[in-house]
């Protein structure tokens, strides 16, 4: 299972993105599907840095992927505070500008653009599993 470990800093996001693009190429995802996965991983890593670790420079993130005939599965692991997404409310993307929240889009994008998203806390680690189906063209 190919993986990289990055320090919990924003400047590492470009490196994760490059790693994920390789994964998407191996999985033969089309350009837009690959963009969706890249975005979801970027959002998830940003949240780990911001919330699990409470800011930059407090821990690392392991990112790995697995390709099966049907799926590309991305796993992110961190040692920060446990996270349960249940309580998080959805953004109102139809709100007019004045009532529009600037925050709260990250989780929404992850959920919309990945086919399956699972948050677990196991052995003192947050394990985020995100699955993209490999729908064959045609």
């Amino acid at each position: 299972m190919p993986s990289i470990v990055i320090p919990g800093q924003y400047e590492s996001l470009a490196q994760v993105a490059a790693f994920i693009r390789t994964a998407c190429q191996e999985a033969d995802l089309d350009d837009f599907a690959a963009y969706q996965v890249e975005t979801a991983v970027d959002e998830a890593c940003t949240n780990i840095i911001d919330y699990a670790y409470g800011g930059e420079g407090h821990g690392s993130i392991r990112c790995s992927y697995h390709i099966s005939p049907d799926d590309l599965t991305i796993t992110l692991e961190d040692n920060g505070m446990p996270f349960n997404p249940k309580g998080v409310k959805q953004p109102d993307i139809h709100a007019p500008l004045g009532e529009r929240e600037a925050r709260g889009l990250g989780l929404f994008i992850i959920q919309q653009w990945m086919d399956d998203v699972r948050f677990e806390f196991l052995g003192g680690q947050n394990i985020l599993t995100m699955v993209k189906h490999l729908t064959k063209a045609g």
Partner: protein
Amino acid sequence: MKLSPNTYKHCDLIKIEGRVDSSTAPQLAEALNTITDNGRYRIVLDFSKVEFISSAGLRVLINTQKNCKRYNRGEVVLAELPKNIYAALDLAGFTMLFKIFDNVIEAVASF
């Protein structure tokens, strides 16, 4: 990310190149604040060379749009959105909140 700002008679233009993520969005915010701090609120963002935008970038856009539209003093408009970037903005409901132009000339000329 690389930013190339230009000040014109009726608007400001920033050409954005590369990735707008948590690491680079603060620079974009700073460039936009420099413009609005000068009392200028009509802004064109040239997205033609943007490769990626995350919610950190979207946050900057929405905050700037709120600031610019206040008192009807201006607005941020977007030009030459690559397909993937458009999809991200559309998912987030931003295509309702920003005027979008096919080319930078039309966007600049709209002010």
